Each structure stands twice: as structure tokens, then as C-alpha cells.
């Protein structure tokens, strides 16, 4: 009984450490701009196994939707405003994204370094 109790206390401790670690480390920030229905830059290199904060600035007057099937993300960013999308942690590889409203031109790629 006592051993079981000690065990659960230990695991709770581990859990708390993991959680606080996740809270303490601020995710690195990356910025992406939408201009003339293009993503600038169109390719973004991010570290592996890391959660990142992606700031998408829409400099066009029209709304756009940042979307990616591979990343499971979709967010409408109104004209002349910005939005934040958290991405990852991801395994190495390439993850395409696009602007759903202007997909012919608004195409981009996130590359996760090995």
C-alpha cells in the first residue's frame, strides 16, 4: 500500500516536472507574411521535435486562410491583420501549406531539419 503510494507520488512528481518544463520554455517564433497572395518566405526551416509559434501577417487587404492537411491546421487571417498558429513538435520531413482562398499562388512549405 505504502509502496503504491510512494510510486504514485513519484509519478506525479515526474508529470509536474514535465508540465512545468513545457510551460517554462517559450516556443521559438517564426514569421510568415502574406503579400500579393504569396507566402514570404515560401519555405520555412524549423527545428525537429520542437513546438514553434508561427506568426502569419496578412499584408493584403483580402482575407486568407492558412491551411495545411499535413500539419492539421486551418486559420482564417483577415485582411491587414495577423494570426498566430502553433505548430509541432514535428518529425523531420516536409509539410506543405497553402492559402485556401488563393491556392494558385499562395503555396509554401515547412521543412523540419533532421
Amino acid at each position: 500500500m505504502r509502496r503504491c503510494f510512494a510510486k504514485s507520488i513519484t509519478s506525479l512528481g515526474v508529470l509536474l516536472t514535465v508540465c512545468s518544463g513545457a510551460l517554462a520554455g517559450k516556443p521559438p517564433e517564426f514569421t510568415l507574411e502574406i503579400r500579393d497572395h504569396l507566402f514570404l518566405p515560401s519555405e520555412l526551416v524549423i527545428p525537429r521535435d520542437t513546438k514553434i509559434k508561427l506568426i502569419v501577417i496578412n499584408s493584403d487587404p483580402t482575407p486568407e486562410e492558412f491551411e495545411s492537411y499535413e500539419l492539421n491546421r486551418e486559420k482564417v487571417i483577415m485582411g491587414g491583420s495577423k494570426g498566430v498558429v502553433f505548430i509541432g513538435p514535428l518529425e523531420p520531413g516536409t509539410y506543405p501549406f497553402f492559402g485556401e482562398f488563393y491556392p494558385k499562388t499562395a503555396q509554401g512549405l515547412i521543412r523540419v531539419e533532421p
Partner: protein
Amino acid sequence: MLHSVIIVLREVLEASMLISLLLAASAHVGITRAWIWLALAFGLTGAWLLSRFGSSISSLFDGMGQETVNVMLLGLVIVSLLSNCGLLLKHILNRHLLKRPWWLLWCSLATSCALSREGSEIFIYVIGFMQAGPEGHPIMTGAAIGLGVGTSIGAVLYYLLRLTPLRIFYVVAPILITLVAAGQAVEAARELIQSGWLESGKRLWDSSWIIAEDSVLGQLLYAGFGYEATPSATQLIFFSFTIAVPLTLALYWRWQAGVNHAV
């Protein structure tokens, strides 16, 4: 133009499948379908307000206003659908009289909230192109076609469900309502992950080689039940919990009905 058909169709499908299911269920249990008019009015007004004040809403809560509103709307849809499913299951398994006011409330609430969310995206898209001048005209046509195709598919689904014999409908309906709710839960999980409030957990599998998300079947499954080709662990947890609620209720009520029968 073809692209605008698909964008609008995707959003319309999600709402029209949910509405068809609830309308058919109301008809089968003998409750008026008049709630749809109120729900349409509320839903479309909500959608217009969300698109009209889209910029101001987005900038709320450290730029997470859009996610906050979406999660609240998705949450309301999930609660309403599960409550509806509960009422229906109790009616089927325990021959319990269906509580009419609650049924009407949950149907209206689910429809209004789903329409507000899906509709606002269509409004934002269409209004954006309306401001673009003449080059936006093909987009308008495309959007109108998308709306037409989406509602037509909803109508076909409705008549299919209406023609289903009651015995079969009573098996199919709770399953479909639960899956739609679970699909909304997957979307709510995505909103919470992308806004940084929840961790995504591991990417569990990649089924895009079987059903790609941008394929016709993938889009249909996404609209209906929130299909993701590469779901994260958190999304699967949300999906499973949503399914567990009506499943537990069904098992309990079935057991209870058995006990009463034995007595």
C-alpha cells in the same frame, strides 16, 4: 471557379449533413421540424455577425479570439448532439417518452451553432471577393454552385434517412449523431492545439495513402465525421471520449431495461 465551388461545398456539406440528420430524426420520432426556421435565422445571423466582426474577434485573447469562439461553438454543438443522442437512446431502449421541449432546444442549438461557424467562413470568403470587383464574379458563381450542390446532397441524405425503416433508423441514427459529434470534437481539439492551449501529442498514423484528405471521399468523411489522415494523439482522445458517452449510456439503459423486464 471550380476551386470556389469546393471551398463553399466543404463548409455547406458539414452543416447540411448535420441538419438533414436532425430533421430526419425529428420526423421519425414524430416531432415538428419547424425548429429549423428558427435555427436557420439564428445561425445565419450568427454567421453574419462573426464575419462582420471577424477582425475584432480575431484580435481578442492575445490573437486567439477566433479559436475561442470556434471552440465554444463546437462545444455547444457537441453537447447538443450528445444530449439529443441521449434522449433518442432512452426513447429507443427504455421506451421512454421523448422530452419534446429538450429535443427542440438541442436540435435548434446544434444547428444554429454549426451554421454560425461554417457560415461565417463562407461569408468571409465571399465578401472578400465581392470587394475585389469584377474579378470576383466567377467566385460568386462558384460559391452559388457550391451552395446548391451542398444543400442538394443534404436533401438526398434527408430523403434516404426518411425512407429508412424505423427499426433500422433507430440503429443508424444514434451512431451517425455520435460520429458527427465526435468529428466536431476532433475539430475542437485542432483549434485547442493550434492556439497553443493543448499539446498535440504524437502524430499517430498516416492514412493519406488509403484516403487522402483532399480526395472526394476524404472531404466527405471530413465534413461528416472530422476525418484526418494524420491525426494527433490529442485528437484521437477527444474523438474516443465523445464516442464513449452515448456508448456508456446505451449499455446502461439496455441493462436497466433488461432488469425491469426481468422484474
